[in-house]
């Protein structure tokens, strides 16, 4: 049976697939809770100021309405999170357009929604900061954010023979998981159950407990399936607090989902970035100076900075560099983590500038990158735990047919289309975070089943499946003997599905638990084995039919001695309609070195997803705020264009085999974030190769190519 249990790395279909293709998987709003009331949120229509009056009389009389909650009568809750927790109805202050000002609870959804329209709010406007162009003039270096300096950037840049000096812009983007944020809140005495999909089970639990002054164990989060997150479901946003508050007020279960329109100002965003890149190189193609200055905004109540410049500190061997940030406070919902936070937007600027430099030097952009490969991480002088950038570039070039690229723009045509090829490399750090696992074994004769329990989350990454694979292989059991329980705060605490730490944190912990069980079982018997025993044999020898053990796993101590990242290279072939300027990604290749790949099928899918996100970033996605009021005018899926099926051509994915002994025990680096890094740059570089037009402000919509 050994072959049945060698499952780590195999292309195994998701174990939750059956539930997902039959509609049986329960997301946040799908739980059949009886006697539920429906809540609807009312939003502010100013960006800064105070509420002077809220007239709720008509709403209260509206059919079916059970309660109208405003700052005047809201349950007192504690400020629990300066990023996610603005708008919990504790005072009359307004910090951004679309802040929560009231919650209605009614017998039906239709009644709640209708009554919400009858609430009249009067405001006193204050000066608001809603115009990015004006605000950036007042941007300052964020606290605790010193420039990352190496050598003498100014002297080297000024003295250089070949220079690129360009500014790149990326717009506000929204996460927009297909499942809008939601919660069903059920109180039983002082205990609260929240059916609410989240990337970080413990994070939501802690946030809600703090807000309501409860012990964490009094808050039970149930979240087995998460309809996408991408950073926005990283903690307790106000909608969860308001659902719990509403349920408390009306003393019955309450369902509250954020509308798609309100997803624009309820659960964070990726802020606008303006990145000034200065690159210098010798005629031979060695980089001599690299400057990366990012200007961005944050909200007035919280400092959040996407690290756009981080790749500039470590991707290339460049002796002189300076990377800095400026941020301006604006009256807008808090920026937060979004897929590839920093690296994805930063790589668009850096890898575009590197491409511009390669063109200026008349060098092949692939060769130019290889020529400037750093021997170690120059940002901290640590050795790489492993780095596959060069292999990724070489393999990707082969796969896309880089030899078909014509170095000069506008030389490659197909019908109405100009064809172009582009490349970009990228990386994202690898980490393992503390995660506990409870392993339960049960034996009937030779038959052992395992239950693996931890408060992990599966946001579509395949966590259910790789946890089962890890346990099956480590215990020597077939996967059908392994049950996986995750997405429940009553289980042992686990890392979140954030920052590409999920796979490394979950699987190392699960493997540790399985190995620990074997060790502990062995210690319970004097039996000596000629051949390594099965778990069934161990339990038999120890005369046990049931056994359980728990580990609290964390990163290996030596991991900090190395610089650990996943690395990738993206290659894009775009077709640009010469007349209309419509761009299509005809073919895209992503090659990644990410250590051990736990499941070839789900890993491939995740990288494809990163590529699609990159296509959105490059071509279609942009949230536009009207600077006069601070409202989003792109407040629907008809206005905010996430890529549709036809936007996405063929995507080919490959992984460079990599055995990293330093990053963590299983050698897992994580792939969710790195998958988007470099994609937009590869596409923009391909658009330049096709058209001769260098678009430095995303997205590349048709009007920018006329």
């Amino acid at each position: 049976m050994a072959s049945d249990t060698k499952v780590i790395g195999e292309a195994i279909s998701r174990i939750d697939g059956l539930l997902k293709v039959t509609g049986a998987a329960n997301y946040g709003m799908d739980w059949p809770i009886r006697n539920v009331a429906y809540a609807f949120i009312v939003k502010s229509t100013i960006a800064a100021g105070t509420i002077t009056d809220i007239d709720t009389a008509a709403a209260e009389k509206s059919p079916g309405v059970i309660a109208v909650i405003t700052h005047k009568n809201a349950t007192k809750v504690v400020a629990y999170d300066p990023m996610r927790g603005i708008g919990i109805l504790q005072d009359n202050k307004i910090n951004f357009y679309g802040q929560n000002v009231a919650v209605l609870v009614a017998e039906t959804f239709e009644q709640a929604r209708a009554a919400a329209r009858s609430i009249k709010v009067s405001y006193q406007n204050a000066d608001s900061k809603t115009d990015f162009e004006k605000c950036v003039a007042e941007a300052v270096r964020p606290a605790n954010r010193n420039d990352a300096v190496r050598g003498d950037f100014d002297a080297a840049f000024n003295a250089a023979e070949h220079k690129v000096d360009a500014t790149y812009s990326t717009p506000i983007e929204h996460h927009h998981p297909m499942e809008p944020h939601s919660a069903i809140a059920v109180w039983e005495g002082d205990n609260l159950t929240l059916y609410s999909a989240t990337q970080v089970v413990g994070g939501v639990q802690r946030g809600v407990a703090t807000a309501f002054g409860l012990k964490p164990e009094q808050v039970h989060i149930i979240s087995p399936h998460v309809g996408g997150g991408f950073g926005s479901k990283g903690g307790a946003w106000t909608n969860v607090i308001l659902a719990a508050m509403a349920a408390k007020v009306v003393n019955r279960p309450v369902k509250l989902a954020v509308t798609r329109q309100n997803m624009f100002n309820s659960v964070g965003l990726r802020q606008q970035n303006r990145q000034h890149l200065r690159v210098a190189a010798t005629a031979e193609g060695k980089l001599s100076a690299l400057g990366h200055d990012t200007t961005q905004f944050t909200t007035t109540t919280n400092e959040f900075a996407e690290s756009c410049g981080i790749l500039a500190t470590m991707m290339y061997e460049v002796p002189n560099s300076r990377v800095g940030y400026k941020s301006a406070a604006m009256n807008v919902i808090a920026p937060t983590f979004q897929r590839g936070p920093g690296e994805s937007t930063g790589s668009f600027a850096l890898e575009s500038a590197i491409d511009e430099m390669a063109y200026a030097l008349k060098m092949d952009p692939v060769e130019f990158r290889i020529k400037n490969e750093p021997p170690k991480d120059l940002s901290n002088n640590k050795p790489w735990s492993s780095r596959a950038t060069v292999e990724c570039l070489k393999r990707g070039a082969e796969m896309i047919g880089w030899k078909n690229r014509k170095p000069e723009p506008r030389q490659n045509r197909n019908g109405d289309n100009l064809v172009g090829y582009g490349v970009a490399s990228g990386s994202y750090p690898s980490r393992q975070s503390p995660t506990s696992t409870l392993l339960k074994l049960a034996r009937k004769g030779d038959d052992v089943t395992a239950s693996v329990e931890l408060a992990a989350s599966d946001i579509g990454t395949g966590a259910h499946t790789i946890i089962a694979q890890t346990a099956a292989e480590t215990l020597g059991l077939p996967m059908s003997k392994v049950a996986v329980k995750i997405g429940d705060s009553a289980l042992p605490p686990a890392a979140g599905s954030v920052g590409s730490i999920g796979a490394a944190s979950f699987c190392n912990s699960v493997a540790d638990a399985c190995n620990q069980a074997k060790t502990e079982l062995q210690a319970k018997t004097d039996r000596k084995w000629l051949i390594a025993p099965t778990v069934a044999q161990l339990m038999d020898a120890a005369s046990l039919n049931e056994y359980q053990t728990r580990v609290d796993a964390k990163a290996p101590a030596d991991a900090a001695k190395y610089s650990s990242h996943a690395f990738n290279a993206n290659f894009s072939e775009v077709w640009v309609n010469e007349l209309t300027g419509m761009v299509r990604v005809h073919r895209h290749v992503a090659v990644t070195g990410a250590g051990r790949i736990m499941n070839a099928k789900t890993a491939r899918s995740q990288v494809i997803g990163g590529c699609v996100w990159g296509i959105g970033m490059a071509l279609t996605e942009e949230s536009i705020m009207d600077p006069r009021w601070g409202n989003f005018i792109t407040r629907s899926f008809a206005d905010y264009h996430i890529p549709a099926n036809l936007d996405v051509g063929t995507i080919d994915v490959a992984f460079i085999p990599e055995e990293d002994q330093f990053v963590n025990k299983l050698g897992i680096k994580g792939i969710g974030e790195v998958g988007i890094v470099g994609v937009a740059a590869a596409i923009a570089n391909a658009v330049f190769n096709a058209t001769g037009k260098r678009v430095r402000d995303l997205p590349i919509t048709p009007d920018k190519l006329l």
Partner: protein
Amino acid sequence: MAFEENDVALDADQQMTADEEALLDELGIFGESRRKFLGQLGGVGLGALVLQVLAEEKALAFSDSETAYVAPAVENPVTVSFTVNGAKKSLELDSRMTLLDALRERLGLTGSKKGCDHGQCGACTVIIDGRRVLACLTLTAQCEAKSVTTIEGIAKGTDLHAIQTAFIKHDAFQCGFCTPGQICSAVALMQEAKNGEASYLTANVRQKTGALQLSDDEIRERMSGNLCRCGAYPNIVAAIREAHTGKATDPMAISQMEVHDATV
């Protein structure tokens, strides 16, 4: 069925625990159909998780949802009799209630998802009288005497539809939230192709056609009403292509380089 390789299946009765067997018994999946049920998923793809979660969710599901439901007073009640997944339903509801909300909140059929509630994402796609439509923009009041099929009615008993098995095999979803809509849409699309219906990408709409063999780009265009934020599109296309052509393909293969040259 394009799933020969999985016919190796596991010998279900030998490999399952007593609890799992009890559960399949409870679900009414016996003998040949039990073997098939498991076989369709590929032996190794079926963890005990599935069985366990199915059991928990089934236990929670309120099969008596309609009868137990006490409708709150509404101002403009309408009575609607229609068929949902083959079963006759009669509901008295608020004239404002969309089909999506009626399915989810009144009939306990939560497979259809509310992704935007404004006809801009496709997550609520259901099939009414053979045509794929959006449940969020359909008033239940307009459904009198109509026949509605939701994701819960796509499989025939324990026989998954070819689109469902192909979605699992080709990993045509990640988070799974858009998946019910994608699958309903794809199932209807196959019929549209059989009918020879045109799309914006059809080169010459004047040309008379019988059943169509759709190119990848045709599948992409015809599935563009179903957004997927995880970006599973290439796998969705591969899954539909496999079900549509009946030709099994390797889900892990590097592309076959089909020409991708939509005239847009």
